[in-house]
């Protein structure tokens, strides 16, 4: 088996850890396309991972903002042409700016929806229109999408939409034999979590590697037995 994965938000946190497990610990994945905004962190983490790469494995880092729809479409098309098809897609990139309802700025709400909802949708639709046939799509939602949280309106609403969108994708893409999983992590020590809960000690909560391990398991043969629901991963 020689599968290609695309991971968004791959410069750090869950996306970086998922990339690491795919490329180092997954027997089937030989190429990982990494989508993330251009940053020194992205460059440094790709460089570090490149040093560990086994023979025959490759990383394809592409700098793109998942919230910029036109740029995203171009990046997806370029990636598709370069690697010849995406078998596994992990829609992980996320954005939040938690403020009370009365202070929500519409432009910021739109950015949240652009990154968290339209981004995953755009990647899937663009690839389908190009003729790509996925084995597996993993959409990363959140426990905040299951139960709305005070002060997190835009983020909670966007993740609720991701959970629902995943259900529709699961049904519609079954004609191709594509599996669609939705994963809702609880509190995870990521930069996004730091924005949501700045006073929390990250060492006391679930680590990105834990969630990445679950994603890696989802992509293994046994994963098909656990992908039919919104899967909650929490400590």
């Amino acid at each position, binding site marked *: 088996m020689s599968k290609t994965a695309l991971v968004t938000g791959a410069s750090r946190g869950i996306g970086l850890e998922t990339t690491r497990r795919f490329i180092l610990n997954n027997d089937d994945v030989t190429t990982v396309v990494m989508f993330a905004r251009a940053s020194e962190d992205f460059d440094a983490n790709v460089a570090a991972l490149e040093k560990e790469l086994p023979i025959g494995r490759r990383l394809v880092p592409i700098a793109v903002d998942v919230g910029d729809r036109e740029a995203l479409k171009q990046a997806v098309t370029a990636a598709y042409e370069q690697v010849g098809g995406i078998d596994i897609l992990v829609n992980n990139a996320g954005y939040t700016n938690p403020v009370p309802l009365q202070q929500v700025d519409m432009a910021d709400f739109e950015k949240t929806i652009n990154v968290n909802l339209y981004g995953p949708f755009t990647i899937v639709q663009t690839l389908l229109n190009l*003729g790509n046939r996925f084995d597996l799509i993993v959409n990363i939602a959140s426990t905040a999408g299951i139960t709305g949280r005070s002060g997190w309106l835009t983020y909670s609403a966007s993740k609720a939409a991701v959970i629902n969108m995943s259900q529709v994708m699961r049904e*519609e893409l079954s004609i191709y034999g594509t599996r669609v999983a939705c994963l809702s992590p609880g509190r995870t020590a990521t930069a996004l979590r730091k924005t949501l809960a700045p006073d929390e000690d990250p060492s006391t909560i679930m680590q990105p590697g834990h969630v990445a391990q679950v994603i890696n398991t989802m992509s293994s043969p046994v994963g098909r037995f656990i992908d039919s629901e919104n899967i909650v991963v929490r400590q």
Partner: protein
Amino acid sequence: MYSLILLNGGIGSRTGADSPKQLLKLRGIPILVYTLVTADRVEQISQIVLNYPPQWREDVEAVLKAYAISTPVTLVEAGASRHASVAAMISHCTNDDVIIHETARPLVRTSDFQRLIDSEHSNVSLMSEISFTVAPVDPETSAVTGSLDRSRLRNVQLPQKFAKADLQDAHAHALEQGIESTEDATLVADFGRPIHFIEGTDENLKVTTKTDLKMAGFLLRPEEDDDE
């Protein structure tokens, strides 16, 4: 390699919809997509000849583009009848062997096409046993005129495969004789060319009525719905 004649031209008056039934949604997806995606996965099908109801070409083209069907598709406007459509579509087939299917049977599986292709015979139809009794009657007098041996009857299904020359000859003969057929296996048999059958499946139902649409939707639902 095979050319797939995919019949898609019926207007679907029995489903009671405004648009042709092939563009009706089954679990939110146009019915014709199911067969297109399935046929796209069959390696031996190198061409799809698809017909469309007059005035619906753009809609069919939009579906083909959105679903990125990779097998080359030749579009042909539907004829006045199913028989006329098949006759017109044969000439667009670029392979010596053809398969006939209809988009109104969306539950066809790649294995159905594969079993047909793997059959040793040139002209083969999927057919299923008849689970009920069919009686010959005289419609004018309402008299039952005898009985039929059910074990020697089969429900004719699609897909079917043919040597293109046999199908072409049978249609040319039908044109000469003024014969209008409703399907092609018996047309070829009546013409005198050998034709065989393999077992069909009861899931490969034809969606003709609103009830059929509900049945097909039920069969396509995720299997986890069967959990208790």
